[in-house]
């Protein structure tokens, strides 16, 4: 009797183990990575909703800071341990495509009849190449002015003045005058005063994130240059850039002079020693900063003064902002392509984007999500219409340049901009040399 009891128990144990194993084997784990920690709570909620609808799929979200994100991703691809789905960026995806690291989702999009027109104009097409599709849009961003209301008040500037700022590369327009008025030297003279001591500035009008200008200057120079009539290249996957064009040269030289000759913009070395341009803003050492809509949440949480958002200055060709968007891509090495597609499909759906929007951290690619975001921002007393107006204005945006060799081009241009903004070379010289190197990368 006892022996057979033991056998029975052993049998039960085995069955239990097998049962447990098979149940957990049925649940598929999809690993998903992203870089923006601000958006983590929003996506965790989206994952929760998804898992409620799809109990056989478990979503594991990893967040890796921007600085490490792309290296880690590529290393993990090499090692065969990349995440099943990853947040992707317009500048980076062509390289992954050329290395065969992303799954073409066009067949799935067609089969599931996804309407790509539901995404804000032009976003969906940015993720296609030669009939293949590598991601569905999830959010977009534009650039606007973020300003310190307190400083403006102290300087006697009415916020309404920011509604119609003008700019040109010759004298900087009313934008430069504003920056001058907002800059203060240690004796209390502002930049308009003849006594302004540009060697002893305690507060500048603005600053830019020099070390991350890269090839596109999304928050640094692209809006000025394009509003001056310049263009990066002739379109998606072009093989020639125009960095030596005089319209860009004069824009960059204006910026360099602003910081090194006039003292209205923080010089390169000071930004470096302070840490970063946005740290200068949050600690009140600059009055305003041009930054992307993905930073709205950061600024609202990290400032102890009221902030406002204003439209970009009007350049010779109007107001132009870079228009960027993110999407989620599926790694070719995933062991669960079907489940990965379910997750990607959900992320690109109205349901998910409405949730993300409601957290007020980004503008989703679907209109209803944008409305949800605006509502969330309004509830925190933030008027972010400067960003949305820019997106909706006709010809108000230009696309993020997408070509091959992005890493190399970024490296070349960063070096060029470094020398220019450090005062080691003129924009004309440095940009001419850099453009040759850039175009040479396409000749290999």
């Amino acid at each position: 009797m006892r022996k057979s009891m033991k056998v029975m128990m052993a049998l039960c144990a085995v069955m239990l183990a097998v049962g447990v194993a098979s149940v957990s084997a049925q649940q598929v784990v999809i690993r998903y990575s992203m870089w923006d920690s601000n958006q983590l709570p929003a996506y965790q909620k989206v994952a929760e909703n998804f898992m409620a609808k799809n109990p056989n799929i478990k979503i594991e979200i990893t967040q890796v800071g921007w600085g490490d994100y792309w290296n880690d991703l590529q290393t993990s691809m090499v090692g065969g341990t990349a995440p099943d789905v990853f947040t992707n960026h317009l500048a980076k995806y062509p390289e992954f495509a050329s290395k065969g690291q992303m799954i073409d989702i066009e067949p799935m999009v067609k089969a599931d009849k996804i309407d790509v027109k539901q995404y804000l104009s032009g976003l969906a097409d940015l993720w296609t190449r030669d009939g293949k599709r590598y991601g569905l849009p999830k959010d977009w961003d534009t650039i606007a002015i973020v300003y310190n209301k307190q400083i403006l008040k102290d300087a006697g500037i009415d916020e309404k003045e920011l509604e119609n700022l003008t700019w040109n590369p010759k004298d900087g327009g009313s934008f430069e005058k504003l920056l001058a008025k907002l800059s203060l030297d240690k004796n209390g003279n502002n930049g308009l005063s003849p006594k302004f001591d540009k060697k002893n500035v305690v507060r500048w009008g603005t600053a830019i994130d020099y070390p991350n200008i890269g090839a596109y200057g999304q928050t640094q120079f692209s809006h000025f240059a394009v509003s001056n009539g310049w263009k990066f290249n002739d379109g998606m996957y072009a093989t020639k850039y125009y960095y030596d064009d005089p319209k860009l040269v004069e824009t960059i030289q204006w910026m360099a002079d602003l910081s090194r000759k006039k003292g209205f913009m923080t010089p390169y070395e000071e930004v470096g020693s302070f840490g970063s341009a946005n740290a200068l803003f949050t600690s009140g050492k600059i009055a305003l900063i041009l930054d992307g809509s993905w930073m709205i949440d950061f600024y609202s949480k990290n400032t102890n003064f009221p902030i406002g958002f204003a439209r970009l200055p009007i350049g010779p060709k109007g107001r132009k902002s870079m228009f960027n968007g993110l999407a989620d891509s599926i790694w070719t090495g995933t062991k669960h392509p079907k489940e990965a597609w379910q997750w990607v499909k959900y992320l690109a759906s109205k349901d998910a984007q409405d949730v993300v929007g409601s957290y007020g951290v980004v503008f989703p690619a679907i209109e209803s999500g944008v409305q949800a975001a605006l509502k969330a921002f309004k509830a925190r007393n933030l008027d972010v219409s400067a960003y949305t107006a820019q997106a909706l204005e006709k010809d108000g945006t230009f696309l993020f340049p997408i070509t091959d060799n992005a890493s190399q081009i970024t490296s070349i241009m960063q070096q060029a901009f470094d020398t220019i903004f450090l005062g080691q070379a003129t924009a004309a010289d440095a940009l001419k040399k850099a453009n040759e190197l850039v175009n040479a990368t396409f000749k290999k």
Partner: protein
Amino acid sequence: MAAVHGSGKILLRLTILVILIITLFPFYWVVRTALTPSKVIFTSPSAFWPPNPTFDNYLRVLGLVDAETSVRMGGSGQSLNFFLFLRNSLIVSTIITIFQVFFSALAAYAFARLKFPLRNQLFGIYVSALAVPGIVMLIPNFVLIQQLKLQNTFLGIVAPSLFMTPFAVFFLRQFFLGINKELEEAALIEGAGRIRIFFQIILPLSSGSITTLSIITFINSWNDYLWPLLVGKSEQVRVLTVALGIFRSQTPQGAPDWSGLMAGTSLAIIPIIILFVSFGKKIINSLGYMGFR
């Protein structure tokens, strides 16, 4: 040295004091900062004693409070799974030390006492590897580990150091050469085999230098950064040095979480202090041999 008196002696003592201050002050400052609340860092950067001392930073960094509390305490929500990474460092360093010393000792004994074809040439080749900069071998080793699919495993991390280093073989061979042969000769006459001689005679006789080499090996592998960074990023196998590096790169750029960083750093210093207190004298005495690193 000529005898030193009077003002000379005071000057000397002063110099020693200065040396000690330069050496030890940074350590104190790290702990002082770790005990200062995050928000106070910027308002009293120079107070000698920690202003409003608190253990909050340690709680934050060890992940003992949730993300919200962490942010409220002034941190960035990052945490350092300290005990896990400590465990990983211990595993890696211990495994490497045990195996590397053992295998190197076996080889060193063979080189010291046995005659076999190509013995000297082989030893020469071993030693010549010391001239090759680490990075030359690092990249292909990385590729090899990837191809063997050993990345993010303990085996992948310890593999290159598991069997030998030229230094270890050289070091032990030097010592074995100096051991008096009579004991081995007697044992051989008794009919003992080489292997038995090794374990029962040589090893006990060389416990001093084996210990020295073990300490050196342990410290070197404990402090290693680049290799474990490349092949051991996943949390399960991440060692302390890599964890600190990642912690540092995740700190917000504009306003680094100094008190958190220093809390993490001070934690990482503790195991070394413990090692030092236990083995201090041995470490000091084995200094002469550590030069190769």
